[in-house]
């Protein structure tokens, strides 16, 4: 188990390391002068632009810039944003709790709705329950997050007025979490159905039934536990997708997380903030994936010994 954890942590560190290289290169791939693009609208003289270039280290060779970036990074310094001139890390950390709340609550919705629907469809395979669940799931997969969000907003906030349109409290979290959660529930429902159908056809389930075990024990203790293994293995990837989906959903509901911040940064061509966001995102996704993989290895011994 120890070796497995070390391997997973090393893989996460490699991901973060590649992300540092990617964000350093990013600014050099911008066609034209990145300093002029970033500060062009600030009425700056050529001398001031040159001073900024020196301050950002952009006059140095790229490898030197990379080491400077790593050096600052190890001290927790991601540079300052162009708009507002604030430390990037502070901005990201202030906005991250909102994104985390959205991602975790939508993951919970996706798991509860998606797995139940998939399990039910597999159990009632070939019946109208199966067909309608899967029709619902494929419609869910095809529905754009932002459209589902607007429809929910229209129905629950504007027509029925049950929930607020925007805000920062837990009630305003319900609609964005439902939007993101339901869209991903459709993916999980299809996965769960397929995994459960494989399990229901296995000999051990047939044997358990033949032994005369009560249906609930066969279903929940034997079939469900094994059937969920491949689905749980996908949760790490699901978390990454939810974090990505949050970027769009936060913008629909004016939810003040890092996703909304990222879009503002792309519009403002605020490169230090964009670089910080990509690195931050990659780190969070890599760490979450380590935690989920390790938890999964605890559940399924085959993983840690393979």
């Amino acid at each position: 188990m120890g070796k497995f954890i070390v391997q997973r942590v090393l893989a996460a560190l490699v991901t973060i390391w590649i992300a540092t290289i990617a964000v350093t290169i990013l600014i050099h791939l911008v066609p034209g002068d990145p300093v002029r693009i970033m500060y062009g609208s600030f009425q700056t003289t050529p001398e001031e632009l040159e001073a900024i270039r020196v301050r950002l280290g952009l006059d140095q060779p790229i490898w030197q810039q990379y080491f400077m970036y790593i050096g600052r990074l190890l001290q927790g310094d991601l540079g300052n944003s162009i708009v507002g001139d604030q430390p990037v890390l502070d901005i990201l950390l202030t906005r991250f709790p909102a994104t985390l709340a959205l991602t975790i609550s939508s993951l919970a919705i996706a798991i509860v709705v998606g797995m139940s629907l998939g399990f039910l469809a597999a159990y009632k395979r070939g019946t109208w329950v199966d067909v309608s669940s899967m029709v619902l799931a494929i419609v869910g997969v095809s529905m754009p997050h932002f459209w589902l969000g607007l429809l929910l907003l229209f129905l629950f906030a504007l027509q029925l007025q049950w929930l607020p349109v925007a805000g920062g409290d837990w009630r305003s979290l319900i609609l964005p979490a439902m939007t993101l959660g339901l869209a991903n529930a459709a993916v999980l429902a299809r996965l769960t159905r397929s995994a459960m159908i494989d399990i229901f056809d296995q000999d051990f389930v047939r044997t358990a039934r033949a032994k005369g075990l009560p249906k609930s024990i066969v279903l929940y203790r034997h079939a469900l536990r094994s059937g969920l293994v491949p689905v749980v293995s996908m949760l790490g990837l699901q978390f990454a997708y939810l974090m990505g989906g949050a970027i769009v959903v936060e913008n629909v509901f004016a939810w003040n997380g890092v996703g909304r911040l990222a879009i503002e940064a792309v519009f403002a061509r605020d490169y230090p903030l964009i670089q910080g966001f990509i690195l931050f995102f990659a780190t969070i996704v890599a760490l979450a994936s380590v935690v989920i993989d390790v938890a999964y290895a605890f559940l399924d011994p085959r993983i840690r010994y393979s």
Partner: protein
Amino acid sequence: MVHGSSTAELADNLATTGAARNRSFWRALLASPSGLIGLFVVGLLIFCAIAAPVIAPYDPLRMAAGPRLDPPSMGYIMGTDDFGRDVFSRILYGARLTLQIGVIAVGISLTCGLLLGLVAGYSSGWTERVLMRLVDVLFSFTEIVIALACLAIFGVGLTNAMIAIGIASIPFYARVTHSVVLVEKGKPYFEAAVAAGAGHARLIFIHLLPNVVPTLIVIGTLGVSTAVLAAAGLSFLGLGAQPPQPEWGFMLSSSRDLISRAPWMMIFPGLAIAVTVLGFNLLGDGIREALDPRQRQR
């Protein structure tokens, strides 16, 4: 001479088998409900894109084609927007942009992903390890973040968004190609070709490539739906299509402040995106079933 005629017979047989296989593929595709519905929706989309100038009642960009924010009626079946433009005409013309997005984005990701996956899967050793590790890392960044990074580099706009989405999906296609190549490399026909002394190019392009293509057709079709969704998402955020382009995601975005006054501005473009994505998803599922009869049992 005898050798020549048997070769000709063999070629003839192979061609017949190929044609028979084609017929059975189409029969299987049309027999599956998802394939049939998918084919119909995608066909309808292509028809709308081609026939837009003929069937659209108004110029999609013409302001004040009708009254502002007019609800759906006989004159404007999907209503008008805040500039008095006909929503139905804009949706018809939007089909052109949507198809363009699908073809360009999937074309980029499929070509680059196929090459990367083929090289990594065929070469094995260090090249494979480094390439696939890189692909795994990019994959974990998620497509939207890679697309945002690309847009931060190129700047916003629909063409840049298509390219960004194409680049962002390369890791996915590379991964799938790589895994198919690994499976094919273990099969007896490939080992026989290696034993017979076939060169690298022959092994890759004559033996591996044709066997990778069926899987790529399936994921390419499903990929169009992902690309359409992603492009609509970027346009919705203001990073893709710009005014006055009749792009569906952008149309949805401009409906946001008018949802309670003119819900039709939000309903129809959203429906167009969802039906298109659904169509490509169903078609992809149908092709998969038709190519792999075991899937039909499910």
